[in-house]
């Protein structure tokens, strides 16, 4: 696997400073940050690409773009799971962080034109997929039947609730939500994401699936899609591995022969399945 060019890597190593202009609470442990460049910003990203967010004095982590702004703003949805994400989730308006990116290979939305699209998100996996939904809604007639299946542990852990509701009401795409542990007010489906997936109809000969969530969920979902006749080459998944450089240099994100930061994070199931079958990878 070739590392990125030295020049590219050098440019990618320099963080640009961004100021937090908005913090939105999504769930008990996840927030959405809207960031504005303090000086020169980074290039704009495509759906599924990620940035390295650097919290001063704490460290740097890869985070996907959860929306793409045409105005130089960055939108990231972050769950507080450890040191760096905690520092990022604790930011308030005016706080400054460093950003490098965009990195990686995202969702090939163009390849889904003229096809049915099945988007399956689990937990925080809706964050990297939200730009795909926005892109599809922006050119809705270019696509066939579009289904979005969102699974979460509980209703309180569903991201972007208001937006999900408005997509559901608009009915331009078929939105299905399912939670594992329903609270008393929950009127939707109960179960796990694969239970809901079996209710989605698509033409396996002319469909693309985009899947993001915990690895175990993606494995089960991709297997079910293959069983239903969807070719693994048209089943796209967004992978997560430890990252450091984000630019194909350090090897931290290596998965078999691939560097997830440059060859992914979005990869197809035919490539990913054999790699995930090896326990130590």
């Amino acid at each position, binding site marked *: 696997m070739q590392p990125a060019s030295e020049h590219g890597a050098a440019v990618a190593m320099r963080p640009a400073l961004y100021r937090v202009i908005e913090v939105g609470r999504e769930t008990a442990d996840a927030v959405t940050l809207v960031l504005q460049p303090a000086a020169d910003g980074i290039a704009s990203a495509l759906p599924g690409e990620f940035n390295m967010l650097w919290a001063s004095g704490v460290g740097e982590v890869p985070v996907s773009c959860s929306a793409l702004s045409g105005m130089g703003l960055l939108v990231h949805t972050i769950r507080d799971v450890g040191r760096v994400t905690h520092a990022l989730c604790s930011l308030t308006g005016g706080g400054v962080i460093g950003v490098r990116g965009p990195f990686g290979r995202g969702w090939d939305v163009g390849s889904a034109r003229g096809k049915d699209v099945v988007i399956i998100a689990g*937990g925080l996996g809706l964050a990297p997929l939200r730009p795909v939904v926005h892109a599809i809604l922006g050119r809705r007639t270019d696509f066939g039947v579009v289904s979005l299946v969102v*699974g979460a542990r509980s209703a309180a*852990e569903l991201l972007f609730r208001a937006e999900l509701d408005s997509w559901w009401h608009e009915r331009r795409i078929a939105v299905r939500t399912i939670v594992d542990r329903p609270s008393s007010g929950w009127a939707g489906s109960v*179960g796990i994401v*694969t*239970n809901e997936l079996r209710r989605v109809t698509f033409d396996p000969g002319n469909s693309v699936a985009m899947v993001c969530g*915990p*690895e*175990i969920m993606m494995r089960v979902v991709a297997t079910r899609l293959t069983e239903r006749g969807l070719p693994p080459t048209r089943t796209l998944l967004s992978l997560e591995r430890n990252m450091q450089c984000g630019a194909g240099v350090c090897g931290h994100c290596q998965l078999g022969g691939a560097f997830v930061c440059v060859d992914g994070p979005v990869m197809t199931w035919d490539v990913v399945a054999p790699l995930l079958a090896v326990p130590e990878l």
Partner: protein
Amino acid sequence: MQHIADELAEHRFFAALPVELTTRLADCASNIVFHGGQRLVSEGGVADTFFAIRSGRVAVGVRPPAGSLALIETLHSGDLLGWSWLVPPHRWRFDAVAIEPVRAIQLHAACVRTYLTEHPEAGYAVATGIAGIMAERLESSRLRLLDLYGGGRAAGI
């Protein structure tokens, strides 16, 4: 008016079976409607029917000795409710309650069992379909134990 055999053949579970078999099973079937809040199945009761859901949603769960239904799964149009009718001692292993008005095709278990016993090939086809449903439920339970959307780096995002 649509014939019950056609309605059965349109249902996802029966659509996967040979047409002749679905036509025969229609002899054991009748249409049924439940209103919201009505119980379809009670844990421990005799499993003498099962249901092909045509519309509406059903809550499936278990009822602790004192308390309300602990919801495990919702079943919807196209889903099949009930496998206890196939497995001795033919007692329901769960509760099921209509969340909203439900239209279903009810299959009378004794009639279906008699036909399947006399026609082992048909019995195998139906048992395989039911085993598929049970395998899916088992997998769901396993994934829930693993906390499908939860933390842990190995679990990804």
